[in-house]
C-alpha cells in the first residue's frame, strides 16, 4: 500500500463544525432541488406580505431612478436656457431623488426583517422535523454539519424570498435604461447594445475560473481542519507529550497547508481582480461610447445637452446589470443552501402511534421477526425473542453481532425494517411517544449529557425529577461520590466538570435511573466502571430503582452470569437463548468470554450507525 497523495486522503468526518464544502454546487438530484424549492416557496408564502411590500417598494424606487435622468436632463436644459419653468422640474427631480433614498431605506429594512423571518421559519421547521426523526437517520449528518445546515445555510436560504423579490425589481433599471436610450436617440441605444455581449462573455469567463480556485482553496482548508480535529481528539496525549508546537507545525504546514493555501488564495485574488478590472472597465467605456455617439448627435443638433446627460445616465443604469446578477447570485446560492437545509426536514420521521400501555404491566418484551437492513444486508435478521417482564436479560455476542441494534430496536430508537416489537403486548410503533419514553429508558456506553448543570443533565428527559430524585439516582449509579467532589456538586455546570469516560457513563446511568420505567435498556452502559462500582450499581439497580425488565448489552462474563436470561447474537441472528449456565456448555459461547476480545469498535459513534459522509 502506497501512501495516497495528501489531498486525496479523506478528511476524517469532523465531529465538530464541518468546513465549508468545496464546490458545494447545485445538487444533481432533481428531487432534492424540488424539495428545497418547495420549502423556499413555503418560506416565501410565510412572509408573503413583506415580500410583496419589498417588490412594490423596489419597483417604485426603480421607477423613480428611471424617471430621474430624464427629469434631470430636462431641468438642466431649462436651467441652461434660463427658463423660469425650470424650478418645477428641479423640485420634481429633488422629490424623485428623495423618494428613491427613502424607498431604498424601506427596502433595506424590509429585506432584513423578511430574511430574519424566513430564516427563523426554515430553522423552526428543520428543528421540528429533526426532533421527530430517528437517531439513526439523523446520524447521517455529522454534528457540525447539522449546525451549519441550521445556521449558515438556513441564513443564506432565508435570503431567497427577499432576493427574488428585489431581483425582479432590479431588472427594471437596465431594461428601462435601454428603452430610455431608444427613446432619446436610437443611435445611442444601438451603441450601447453593441457592447453588451462583451459584458456577458466576461462575466461567464470569471464564473468558471473562480469556482475552481475556490474549491481547491477549500480542499486545503478542510485538510487542515481535519488535522486540527485529529489533534484535538488526541489532546490528552499532546498535553502529556508536550508536543503542541510540533502539532501546530504539522497542522499548519501539511502538506497541504498554509503555503498551498496562500498560493490558491493569491490565485483567487488574481482571478477576481481580473474580473473586477474587466467589468470595471466595461461600464465606463460603454458610457463613453454612448456619449461619443450622443456627442455627434449633439453636434448635429439632434440632441440637447440635457438629453446627452440623460443618455449617459441611462447607459449607466442599463450597464448596471451587476445588481441583477448579484441578486440572482444570491438566489442561486440561497437555493443551494436551501438544499442543504432542506435535507434536515426531509428526514423520515420515526413513526409513533397513540396507544398506551396497560397500567402496571411487568414490561414483557417480545420481538417478532425483527429485521434491520443496512445497504441491502440484514444486520438483524428475523429476530424472535420473548423476554418475560421483570427479567434481567443479557445480550452477548462479538463486536458487530448486532447487539446495539437490538438494544436500539427494543427501545424504539430505531424502527425495524420488518417485524414488530411488543411491550406488554402493545406494538411500540403504535405506542404514544410520550408513554414510550416514560416507560422505556436507555443508558449508553458513551452518553451525551444535556442540561446546564450536572444535576440538570441527570434530570434531563420527558419528565423532570426533583433534586432528591436526582441525588438518589446519582447514588444508585455510583455517581454521587464524584459529583460531590466537583466544584459545585450537582450545580456544577457540565462544561466546567472535568468528567472521565466512566464518570459520564455513571451520569448517563443516573439519568436512566431517575426516569426508569418498565423497561431499561443498558447498552454497554457499565463498560467503564470498575467491578466494585459495577457491583454496587447492579445492587442498586435491583433494590433502589423502579423494578422492571432490564436489557443489558454486555461484554462481561459476570453480567451474563448474573442475568436471568442470555441472548447470544451472532452476525445479526439469535444463535441461542437461555440461562448462562446452559449456554456455557457450548464451546462457542465460552469462546466469547475466554479471551475477551479487544475492543474493536470504531471510535466513539454518537449514534448506532456511523454518520455517512455528508453530501
Amino acid at each position, binding site marked *: 500500500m502506497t501512501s495516497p497523495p495528501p489531498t486525496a486522503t479523506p478528511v476524517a468526518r469532523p465531529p465538530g463544525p464541518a468546513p465549508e464544502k468545496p464546490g458545494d454546487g447545485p445538487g444533481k438530484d432533481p428531487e432534492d432541488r424540488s424539495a428545497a424549492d418547495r420549502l423556499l416557496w413555503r418560506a416565501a408564502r410565510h412572509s408573503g406580505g413583506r415580500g410583496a411590500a419589498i417588490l412594490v417598494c423596489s419597483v417604485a424606487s426603480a421607477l423613480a431612478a428611471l424617471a430621474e435622468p430624464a427629469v434631470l436632463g430636462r431641468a438642466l436644459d431649462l436651467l441652461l436656457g434660463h427658463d423660469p419653468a425650470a424650478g418645477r422640474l428641479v423640485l420634481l427631480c429633488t422629490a424623485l431623488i428623495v423618494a428613491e433614498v427613502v424607498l431604498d431605506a424601506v427596502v433595506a429594512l424590509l429585506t432584513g*426583517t423578511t430574511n430574519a423571518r424566513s430564516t427563523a421559519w426554515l430553522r423552526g421547521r428543520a428543528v421540528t422535523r429533526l426532533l421527530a426523526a430517528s437517531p439513526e437517520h439523523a446520524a447521517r449528518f455529522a454534528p457540525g454539519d447539522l449546525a451549519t445546515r441550521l445556521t449558515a445555510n438556513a441564513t443564506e436560504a432565508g435570503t431567497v424570498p427577499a432576493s427574488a423579490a428585489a431581483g425582479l425589481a432590479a431588472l427594471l433599471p437596465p431594461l428601462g435604461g435601454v428603452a430610455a436610450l431608444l427613446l432619446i436617440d436610437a443611435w445611442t441605444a444601438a451603441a450601447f447594445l453593441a457592447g453588451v455581449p462583451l459584458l456577458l462573455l466576461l462575466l461567464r469567463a470569471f464564473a468558471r475560473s473562480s469556482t475552481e480556485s475556490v474549491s481547491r482553496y477549500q480542499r486545503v482548508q478542510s485538510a487542515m481542519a481535519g488535522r486540527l480535529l485529529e489533534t484535538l481528539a488526541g489532546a490528552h496525549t499532546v498535553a502529556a507529550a508536550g508536543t503542541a508546537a510540533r502539532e501546530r507545525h504539522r497542522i499548519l504546514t501539511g502538506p497541504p497547508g498554509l503555503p498551498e493555501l496562500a498560493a490558491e488564495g493569491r490565485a483567487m485574488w488574481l482571478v477576481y481582480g481580473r474580473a473586477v478590472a474587466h467589468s470595471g472597465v466595461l461600464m465606463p467605456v460603454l458610457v463613453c461610447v454612448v456619449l461619443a455617439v450622443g456627442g455627434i448627435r449633439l453636434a448635429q443638433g439632434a440632441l440637447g445637452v440635457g438629453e446627452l446627460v440623460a443618455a449617459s445616465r441611462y447607459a449607466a443604469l442599463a450597464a448596471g446589470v451587476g445588481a441583477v*446578477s448579484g441578486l440572482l*447570485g444570491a438566489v442561486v446560492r440561497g437555493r443551494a443552501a436551501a438544499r442543504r437545509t432542506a435535507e434536515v426536514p426531509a428526514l423520515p420521521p420515526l413513526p409513533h402511534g397513540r396507544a398506551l400501555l396497560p397500567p402496571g404491566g411487568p414490561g414483557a418484551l417480545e420481538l417478532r421477526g425483527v429485521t434491520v437492513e443496512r445497504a441491502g444486508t440484514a444486520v438483524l435478521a428475523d429476530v424472535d425473542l420473548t423476554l418475560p417482564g421483570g427479567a434481567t436479560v443479557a445480550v452477548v455476542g462479538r463486536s458487530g453481532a448486532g447487539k446495539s441494534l437490538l438494544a436500539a430496536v427494543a*427501545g424504539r430508537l430505531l424502527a425495524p425494517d420488518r417485524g414488530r416489537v411488543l411491550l406488554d403486548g402493545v406494538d411500540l410503533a403504535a405506542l404514544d411517544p410520550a408513554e414510550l419514553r416514560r416507560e422505556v429508558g436507555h443508558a449508553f456506553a458513551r452518553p451525551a449529557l444535556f442540561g446546564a448543570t450536572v444535576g440538570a443533565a441527570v434530570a434531563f428527559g420527558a419528565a423532570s425529577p426533583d433534586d432528591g430524585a436526582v441525588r438518589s439516582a446519582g447514588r444508585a449509579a455510583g455517581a454521587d461520590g464524584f459529583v460531590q467532589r466537583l466544584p459545585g456538586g450537582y450545580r456544577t455546570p457540565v462544561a466546567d466538570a472535568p468528567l472521565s469516560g466512566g464518570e459520564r457513563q455513571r451520569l448517563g446511568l443516573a439519568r436512566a435511573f431517575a426516569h426508569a420505567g418498565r423497561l431499561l435498556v443498558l447498552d454497554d452502559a457499565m463498560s467503564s466502571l470498575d467491578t466494585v462500582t459495577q457491583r454496587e450499581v447492579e445492587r442498586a439497580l435491583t433494590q433502589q430503582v423502579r423494578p422492571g425488565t432490564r436489557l443489558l448489552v454486555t461484554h462481561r462474563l459476570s453480567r451474563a452470569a448474573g442475568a436471568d436470561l442470555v441472548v447470544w447474537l451472532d452476525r445479526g441472528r439469535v444463535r441461542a437463548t437461555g440461562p448462562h449456565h446452559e449456554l456455557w456448555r457450548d464451546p462457542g459461547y465460552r469462546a466469547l468470554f475466554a479471551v475477551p476480545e479487544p475492543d474493536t469498535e470504531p471510535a466513539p459513534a*454518537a449514534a448506532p450507525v456511523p454518520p455517512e459522509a455528508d453530501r
Partner: protein
Amino acid sequence: MTAAETETDTHTGTGTETVAGPVEARAAAPAATEPAGPEAPGVAAQGRRFLWRRRRVLVALGGWSLLEAAHTFLSGYGVAKALDDGFLAGRTGTGLLWLAVAAAGTLLGGLAVRGVFTALAGLVEPFRDGLVRRAVSGALAAAIADPARADNSAVSRLTHQSEIARDSFAGLVLTARSFVFTGVGALVGLASLDPALLPVVLPPLLLGLALFLSTLAPMAAAQRAFLDADEALSDRVGAVGAGFRDVVACGGQGVIGAELDRLIAAEARLARRLARWAGVRTLALGAAGRLPVVALLLAIPWLLRGGATAGALLGALTYLLQALLPALHALMTAFGAAGSRLLVVLERFRADPALPDSAAPEAASAFPDPGPPGAASALPDPGPPGAASAAPDRVALGAAPPLPARVLSESAPAVPEPTAPEAVPVCPRPGPPGAAPAPTGPAAPEDPGPPAAELRGVTFAYGPGARPVLDRLDLTVRPGEWLAVVGPSGIGKSTLTALLAGLLAPDRGTVTLGGALARDPSGRAPLQRRTLLPQQAYVFSGTVRENLRYLSPDASAADLRRAVAALELDPLIDRLGGLEATVGPERLSAGERQRLALGRAHLSRAPLLLLDEATCHLDPDTEERAERALAARPGTTLVVVAHRISSALRADRVLLLDGDRALCAPHDELLARSALYRDLAGLWETG
C-alpha cells in the same frame, strides 16, 4: 460576476457600478450589516504592526491606487472638455478625442485595479495566514490546558471565521482605498472644472458621511449580539446533533425543541434590530451620495452666473454619479457589514498564545535549578536547551539499564529520604514476585538513589469548595519499580498520573521525579523524564513510522525495530501496509490505536512510564504482554493505572486509592490488609 462570487463577493467595490451592484444587494441582508465600533486597542495596535511590516505592499497599493485616482479625474474632465471644446463648439473631432482620453483613463483604471488586487493578495494572504496560525495555536493551547474539554469550535475559527476575516479585511482595504483615491480624483477634477463646485457638493457629502459614522457604534453592538446569538444556536444544534440518540432515548425532544426555538427566536429578534440599522445606513448612503446632486441642481443658476459651462456641469454630474456614488456604496457596505464582522471575528483571534516549544521547556524542567540542591549541582550543566536535554537520556537508554538511576544516585546523598507517615507505609521493595518476574533488574534495593517519583503531602481538589480528590498523599516510587494503581472509578487515579506527569499542580505538597519537581514553577512538565499514555490513544494522519516515533522523532531504525518486536506490533503494522503506510485515527480501532501508542511509549526515552488505563481496549493477554514488554524496557519505572486486577498481580507493588486513604503494598500484603482490595481482586478475577 454572478455565480462567480461564491467566496469572494464581499470584497467588491472598486468604484464602478457593476461591482457595487452585488454589494448593495448584500448590504441589505441582515447578516451582513455592521460597523466598526469602539474597537479594542489591542486589535488596532496589532493591526498597525501588521501593516508596518508590510510597508512595501502598502506602497505598491498606494501607487496603483494613484493610477485609479487619475482615472477618476480623467473620466469627468474628459467628458466636460468633450462637451465644451468639442461637441458644443461644433468640433466633433475634438469632442471624440477628449472622450477617447476619458476611455483611455478607464483602461488605465482597469490596469490599476489588477495591480491593486495583486498588492491586495500580498496583504490579505499573510493576514489570513496569521489568523489561521492563531486559530490553531489557540485551539491547541486550550486543548492541552484542559484535554478533557478539547473544543472543536476552533475548527470553525480555522475555516469559517478566518475566511470571514479575510474577506472582510480585503473588502475594507479595497473600498477604503478606493473611496479615498476616487474622492481625491473627483475633488481635484471638480476643482479644476470650476472651483465653485466644491462648496456646493462637499457639505451634503460630509453630512451623509457624518450620519453614517454616527451609526457605526450602535450597529457594531447589534452585529456583535447577532453573531453571538448565531454562535449559541450553532453550538446548541451541534451538541444536539452529537447527542441526538440520547435526546430521543430520554424523550427530551420537547425540552430541546423549546430551547432551540428560543434561540432561533432570539436570533431573529436581533436580525430585525440589525435590519432597522440597515435602513438607517441606507438613508445615510442616500444622503451622502444623492444630496450633492440635489445641491448641484439647486445651485446651477448661481453656478451659471459664475461662468460655469454646460461641460463643467456634465463633468460634475459624472464625478458625483459615476465615481463618488459607487465608491460610497462600496465603502458603506464594507464598513457597515465587513468592518464590524471583522472586529467581532478578530477579537476571537486576539491573542496568539505561545505554545511550549517542545525543546526549550524540557531542558528547563528536566533539570530544574530550584530542585534539591545536591541534585542540581551534580547534574551536568544543561547548557543550551534542546541538545543538552536530549543527550543524557539517550545515553541512559543506549547504555546499561539502570543508568538513569545511577546518574541520579550521585546526587542522592543530598536528597533527604522521605519520612513515611504511619498511614501510608512505604513498603520495602519486594523482590520480583514469582508471577511477574521483571526481566530487567530494577535498581537494586540497596541503591540509595532518589525515588523515580515521589509525592509528599499532596492534596488536590477540582475547585476550592470541592472535596479533595487526593488528600495528603505520600508515595515513593523507586527507580525501576513497577507500581499498579487501583481503586474504584473516579477515585483520582487519573488525577494522580496527571500530577506525576506534571500536568497538574498539587494544591498542597510536592511531586518530584528523580528528585526534581514534576512541574516547575512556570508550569512546565519534565517531558524527558516521563511518558504518560492516556486512555485515549492518539494516532494522527501520517505514516506508521511517524506515529511510532512521535515521542522520539529521531529514534533510530534499530530502536524502532526493538519497540515493534517488544510489543509484537509486526502483524498489525503488516496489516496497515508497513511502516511507511499512512494511517489515520478513523481507520484504526481503539485497541489498535492503543497498541501503536504503547509502541510509541516503548520508543520514548523517558525512564518513567505512566499508563493511565492505556490498555483498556486490549484483551487481557495482549495487555499483559504489553505491560511486561514495557517493564522490560531498560531503565524503566512503570506506573500502571490498572484496568484489570491482573495488572496489579504483575506489579511489584500496588497503590490502592479508596477516596479517604491510600495504601501501598505488594499484592499479597494488600490482600491481607485491605477488605476493599480483597473485594476488588475477587471481583476482578471472576470478571
